[in-house]
């Protein structure tokens, strides 16, 4: 039975509103924590700044993904229309000057590759999909997708200490503070 050891994941504390979460986040940030997160049912405007987070780098992924699409479409069209299967149709030349006729497909593949890069880039950045997470063991965490606002500070943060972190969360207005454990 209870041969599994429990490992502490961290503290979970509830806050009463978006603005309370926002103010608490500023204090956790200023206390110097790194491994922590704010949980809310919807994205809160400006919380990135309050948590000291940088702007997402996803657009860079998508830029290169999109350019790959453009290049793929051009290569596909040019190779087939000019190099290996040149045919004169619609009085358009079978050389590079027929490129305006390739623009629609180049545009569409740019969008298609960008779309896929958004999907897979996002999943890589947010480290999903995953089937389980220690926080799902909490009895109150299910409210994070309904009407609950939470802060979780992880035990692997160097500044984490069982007593002081709990006090900090209580001090900045956290309620229902809970020690979340995961099976090791």
């Amino acid at each position: 039975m209870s041969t599994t050891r429990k490992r502490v994941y961290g503290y979970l504390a509830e806050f009463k509103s978006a603005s309370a979460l926002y103010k608490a986040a500023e204090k956790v940030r200023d206390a110097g924590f790194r491994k922590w997160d704010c949980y809310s049912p919807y994205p809160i405007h400006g919380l990135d700044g309050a948590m000291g987070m940088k702007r997402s780098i996803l657009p860079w992924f998508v830029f290169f993904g999109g350019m790959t699409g453009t290049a793929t479409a051009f290569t596909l069209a040019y190779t087939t229309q000019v190099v290996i299967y040149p045919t004169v149709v619609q009085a358009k030349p079978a050389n590079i000057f027929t490129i305006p006729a390739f623009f629609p497909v180049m545009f569409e593949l740019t969008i298609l590759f960008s779309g896929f890069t958004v999907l897979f880039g996002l999943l890589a950045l947010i480290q999903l999909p995953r089937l389980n997470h220690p926080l799902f063991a909490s009895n109150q965490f299910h409210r994070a997708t309904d009407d609950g606002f939470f802060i979780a500070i992880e035990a692997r943060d160097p500044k984490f200490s069982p007593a002081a972190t709990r006090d900090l969360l209580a001090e900045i207005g956290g309620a229902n503070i809970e020690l979340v454990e995961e099976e090791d």
Partner: protein
Amino acid sequence: MASTTQAAPAAHTGVKLPVLEREKLILNGRSYHWITERICGVVENKQPLLWWLLFIPSALIAAIGVGGGLFHLVSTGVGVWGNTNRVMWGWPIVNFVFWIGIGHAGTLISAILFLTRQNWRTSINRAAEAMTIFAVMCAGIFPAFHVGRVWFAWFLAPVPNANAIWQNFKSPLLWDVFAVSTYFTVSLIFWFLGMVPDLATIRDRAKPGLRKILYGIFSLGWRGGNRQWSHYEMAYLLLAALSTPLVLSVHSVVSFDFATSVVPGWHTTIFPPYFVAGAIFGGFAMVLTIMVPARFVYGLQDLITMKHIDNMAKIILLTGTIVGYAYLMELFVAFYSGAIYEMDAFKFRIAGPYWWAYAAMMSCNVLSPQVFWFRSCRENLWVVMAVAMCVNVGMWFERFVIIVTTLARMWLPGDWKTFSPSPQDQMLFVGTIGMFLALFMLFLRFLPCINIAEVKWTKLESDPHFDDKEHHPDHGAKPEAAYQKELA
């Protein structure tokens, strides 16, 4: 509607004029929990009788019309369709353009209105995006089988084949293949990513069991942490920015199929904007057709308010008028060009044997939306539904007019034919209507039909500075706690 006024904020310096109060997107100050309950309730509770009354017949019609119809078509040959004469695009391409147009409203609502920060989109975007997906699925059936031998439809894809023949990348028909398949794929990604947080909401409410496992898998393990939301919002913004030119390109490319051919009545430069406006017009009509009844059946009046319906009616009025302008401009250009073939093509449309189709198109698309100039008509849901139905019919006739009347009178008089759809033609079209409705009913049954996270986001108190008197002296004046107490 927005007639009440409030005093200007105290912090405001300068001339104090009364401020027109912004209409609320969520009525009765509903709480977050109420929103979750109400929207998830659609999925979690037993479906009302009306759902079954709509689902069973539409699923049967889809099975007979699409399943049976296509089986008959493939086993017999594509000659069972009515387009065995010069009207070779006939009914299938009319239906293809009709369905693909329906989808455009979904992308407009989810992408263009997102970029322009129209927060009212949040209540209707999910259902409209679902319509996009289902409409494009219906649309795709027609060209796939219209190629003749459907088992060779893979020739559309640029892959090496035994004949060493490559696709013609200069042809709008190939552009169409890329445009429509990209449109479907990106719309699907947009729809799915938008739904992930809401699927997590349903997962978190489910009792352990199959439902929790399935919604757990499809919600990808979403936790709603800001380190996820931050990237997620960027992804959403990027998809909106990608979908906006995409949706404009799709119907433009569809219109190139016509506009690049040297055929009187098709060979015009006005086609791309005219087709895009028409697509958005027809799509919004379909959104209203479905959402107005759905908000009553599922009690969503506080989330899909009269304000939303008012806005959609105004968009229908605007795009309908643009379409009307395009119809008239086509006539003017035909006259002004001095080309007798162009003039004859339009004379034939208006006064030829298909005059009834032209009259239906004009009255349904141009005249019927004009009632939306009057507020009383935008507020009367019977009028709104009647106009939406008119537009659905009118937009179908628009495609019929463009395709059939033109092909029935091509260059050679020996080719002139009068088109009539065969029973198989009609069966397949009715089948796709059934398929569209059946898929939408399944969507209502299994997926969150309103974007829960985004609707919550539009509440005033969702702003973290809501109670900050220094920055927002006008906020917090009307505490919503009173309503929440009542609901608790």
